[in-house]
């Protein structure tokens, strides 16, 4: 450990040791071979409370993950994929069955209390806020539990409120805030103790698309300015794409893909060509001709959508159309929606039986 002095003058210890995966990188979060199996409660406990699982459930199976300072990693997966379990293990709310991990050099199994000081957690729901208290009181409660001094509060609360654009609402009661403001308050609370890492669990779940866009822009800016390592889970795939982040696609506790979305696109994307004709009869003729040439096409009214072949591209399509290509009025490439891209990744291997955890 080394010592560091903040601008408020307090002297703190700062962990310098990094995990085994961090060589040569400023890695903040590192997980290696992380596995979690939920066991049914022992029989003697079931006399008091019935168990909701009858068989062991493997929620995580050998997860490796590395997130550096200034990097966002989007965790994508259907319900039951293991996202929440992974987050809970990182902050010490549950323990892994096997594997290891660290956050800012702190071991996730033995130093979870210290980890909770360097990780900002933004839960998905507003009920984690004290609804009858003011914005400032919510931050004061969290700051006190984080061990912040009065001198730190004086500087840091206005700072984080300015970051999330809630300065004017400092003394407003939380229940009177809009859903977007409440989301920003949850973010401010996570940022208050100047964490090294942020865990954002469905941060835009309850807010409208405009507010969600603003919140994600804010998060993107903060990641760079504060050099935060961010783990974010979201079901809104367009938001994940807008973050330009690294992505971890999970399914049934396994990692299906780990890397940036551009690489994912290059590897999996199948671009479609939208061809518009002057008459619908021409479009249906084109559909027949393309399909008979081994291409995959479908017509709707005057438009034909055709999957571009990996070899030959547009030229192969036009060769197949022959003289019909002279009747083409409009042509454009349709990028594959991320939703379809991810669905293809998930279908790339036989799905295991979906777990109910």
């Amino acid at each position, binding site marked *: 450990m080394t010592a560091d002095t903040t601008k408020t003058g307090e002297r703190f210890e700062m*962990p310098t040791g990094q995990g085994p995966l961090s060589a040569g990188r400023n890695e903040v979060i590192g997980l290696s071979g992380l596995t979690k199996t939920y066991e049914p409660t022992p029989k003697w406990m079931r006399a008091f409370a019935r168990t909701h699982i009858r068989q062991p459930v493997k929620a995580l199976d050998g997860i490796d993950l590395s997130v550096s300072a200034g990097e966002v990693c989007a965790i994508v997966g259907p319900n039951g994929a293991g996202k929440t379990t992974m987050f809970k293990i990182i902050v*010490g709310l549950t323990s892994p069955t096997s594997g290891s991990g660290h956050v800012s050099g702190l071991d996730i199994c033995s130093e979870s209390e210290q980890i909770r000081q*360097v990780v900002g957690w933004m839960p998905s729901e507003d*009920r984690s806020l004290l609804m009858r*208290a003011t914005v400032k009181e919510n931050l004061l409660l969290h700051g*006190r*539990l984080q061990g*912040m001094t009065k001198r730190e509060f004086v500087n840091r609360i206005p700072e984080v409120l300015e970051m999330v654009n809630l300065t004017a609402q400092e003394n407003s009661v939380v229940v009177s805030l809009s859903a977007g403001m409440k989301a920003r308050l949850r973010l401010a609370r996570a940022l208050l103790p100047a964490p090294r890492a942020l865990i954002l669990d469905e941060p835009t779940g309850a807010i409208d698309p405009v507010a969600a866009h603003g919140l994600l822009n804010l998060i993107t800016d903060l990641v760079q300015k*504060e050099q935060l390592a961010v783990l974010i889970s979201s079901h809104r795939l367009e938001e994940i794409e807008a973050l330009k982040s690294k992505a971890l696609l999970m399914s049934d506790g396994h990692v299906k893909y780990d890397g940036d979305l551009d690489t994912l696109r290059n590897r999996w994307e199948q671009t479609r060509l939208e061809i518009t004709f002057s008459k619908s009869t021409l479009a249906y003729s084109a559909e027949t001709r393309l399909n008979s040439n081994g291409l995959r096409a479908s017509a709707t009214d005057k438009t034909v959508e055709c999957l571009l072949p990996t070899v030959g591209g547009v030229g192969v399509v036009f060769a197949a159309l022959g003289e019909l290509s002279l009747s083409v009025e409009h042509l454009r490439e349709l990028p594959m929606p991320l939703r379809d891209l991810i669905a293809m990744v998930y279908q790339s291997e036989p799905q295991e039986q979906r777990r109910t955890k």
Partner: protein
Amino acid sequence: MSGARASVIRNRGLPQKVLDTFGAYIRIDIVEDWMFPLSLVLRYMAVIFPVLLYFFQSLYLDLGPDQFAFMVIGISVTAGLQDALTGLTGRLQFAQERGTLETYMVEPVPWAIIPLAMNIWRSLSGAVLACLMVSVGALFGAPLDLSRVPLALTILFLGIISCNAIGTFAASFLVLFKRGEPVIMIYGLAAGVVGGSLFPPTVLPGWLRWLSYLVPHSYVISAERQLLMQVPPEGGVAPAIVIGALVVFCIVASASGLYVFDKSLNYAKRLGILGV
């Protein structure tokens, strides 16, 4: 807006963490109470009625003012300790069912002290309630000796700490089995019978009387009667002995309660049932 800040791990010893946690939760409880001023006033006003109940009963049965004082002290202490006893599991279960328990647990403080911190304000307000009931009793003519109030308050606070310690056992039960009421209900009802709130434990048959030695209620109620009544009942335990017994009970029960609670939390963490 600030630039990048170094990650910090604030060096806090356990006493500082306990102080920070207790301070934070007391403040937020005050804020919550302050948000609903009328319900706070009504809660304290409601204590007049049980005192009135026993006042009129003592008139009807012609029990006399000393018996009225005897009963008022018994029910006041029981009411004051009840808040300390039930508040801990009540708050914890509320947080668990509302889904906010995990939010509290991602704070960097030892988990075992969180429920205690949640219950401090409730316990203190229980003590105020007990004092208020005794005061109302005095207004209705209960003959009380107020010269030893500081010692009476000391014993009441030791009783509250004891009940919090018992509450941690119930909280351990709650963490693992999601319900804490069975433990508290059995204990609360048993303490009502053997604690001697309306009659002295000497009335009980021998096979039941020994239980009264195991519950802090009987010590606290007996000592309060010895200290506050102008004509204390015979056969009561001396306040000095009560203080000694309660101090030992507090130390043993608090240490073992926190140990059991910590073990329960870690077991629940391993099973993955902490917040559900």
